[in-house]
């Protein structure tokens, strides 16, 4: 196992380095790390799927994002405490919740339909 983990570490290390170089060349100057909260019914299931896809989308665009997962019942309070750049909900959003940041539906990240558009919308709104 030691050998394997070393192997993976090396691979990953290389990958990150290469990506960084590309980012410097192509991308402008956005080195900011965005923060987000993603909520689903249990805080485990669909939010994990959506989180992975959002992380991938941000990485491909050379942006950094840190995403916390939670249950829908915790979303409003957690958003008040953590003050994220945006929140995402993969379940129906209960009425009467208020947020200080943009709120997006996570359904495109589950179905894969309209995924690019959804990502663009998120990034447009948080870059403003």
């Amino acid at each position, binding site marked *: 196992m030691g050998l394997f983990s070393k192997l993976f570490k090396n691979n990953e290390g290389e990958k990150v380095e290469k990506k960084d170089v590309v980012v410097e060349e192509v991308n402008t100057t956005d080195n900011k790390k965005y923060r987000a909260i993603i909520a689903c*019914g249990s805080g485990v*299931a669909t939010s994990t799927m959506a989180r992975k896809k959002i992380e991938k989308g941000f990485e491909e665009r050379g942006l950094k994002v840190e995403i916390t997962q939670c249950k829908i019942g915790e979303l409003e309070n957690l958003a008040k405490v953590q003050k994220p750049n945006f929140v995402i909900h993969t379940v129906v959003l209960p009425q009467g919740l208020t947020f200080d940041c943009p709120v997006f539906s996570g359904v495109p990240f589950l179905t*894969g339909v309209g995924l690019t558009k959804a990502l663009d919308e998120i990034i447009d709104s948080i870059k403003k």
Partner: protein
Amino acid sequence: MGIIKALLDMGAVVVLPIIIFLIGVFFRLRVKDAFKSGLTIGIGFVGVNLVIGMLVGNLGTATQKMSERFNLNLTTMDVGWPVESAISFATPLVIWVFILALVINLIMLTMNWTNVMNVDLWNFWHFIFTGALVYYTTHSMVLALIATAISIVIIIKLADWAAPIISKYFGMEGVTFAHMESINWLPIGYGINKLIDMIPGINKIDIRMNSGENKNTNSLMSIFGDPAIMGLILGAIIGALAGYGWKEVLMLAMNLAAVMFLMPRMVKILMEGLIPLSEAAQEFMNARFPGRKVYIGLDGAIAIGDPGIMSVGVIMVPISLLLAVILPGNTMLPFADLGIIPILLTWAIIPSKGNLFRALVSSIIVMSLILLIGSAMAPLLTTIAKEVGFAIPEGVGSVSSLDAGSHVLSYVIWKIFSLF
């Protein structure tokens, strides 16, 4: 052959990573990614197994002592959906069910028998679960796979019917729930509603759900929906009822809170391993039907934020515990799955169209069925869990879950195939 047998004997922890790796390679994942997927799933299994031992050991002894003291018949532990899914993924049916589910869906789409594309690989465990019940009863792989195929076709058709209702009720276009444990109650939910329509007097009762109290439901939900707090409270209550001293009560409460918190995290690891495969399957299917308007099958848990479902779900938590005690024939004490009751009752609640009275009546009927089915499955599930290598100690009663009891379709198919 010797090597294959040796591998199979090692159980899911070793075999499933290999299977997942092979499926990953088939879907043209990079070898490194396929390897990582398999490894992650193996790690998830080891994690689930650790927590199961802790849960069953702690809760089993306590519920038995409690049952003896109060002369209850609650010998079955509700170990929750994470355990049922892990048990399903640990059976030898996995690879065949993956292939069956995708091929059947592909054929149904090609022949225009459905508009549903179900690539929610994670929830394929529901189909595996159906097959597993048949497999461990009849010991015939062929019968098990026929049973699985039937459940796949029925769930895809139910998802077809549910799609317009979902877009109307939740305002979500292009998605549906190909999610057995919730959607297999759709015909029963609408059936109960029709029955109430026919009873004079009763059919006039209409108590509207108060949408102004959403704030309250939210805060209630964050307590009842918080597994750690539920584990803590129930652990203390069960410990006290079992006649434990105060030190043991605190220990039990703390251990059960830990189990409730840790179990979903372990399953999350399992899931993360499956995500690359799920994406690959989605691309594979999408590439075959370009431009076709399809409903994507999703996890039924999406509905949980709906105010009607949430408030009835929360009211049903104490009612479910009460039902468990008074319902004749029930042996299961609801525990680990209390938090997902709103999801399980989705289709008991939707047909009531905002009428609290009807929602509660059908929820109580459905919950009673869930408890009875879960109890009926318990002996077999315990055997399967042991057989696939999970740490179920001897003499602590049997394991099942509210979620297992929600698989009414699996239950019916299992009972029919048991006749052979």
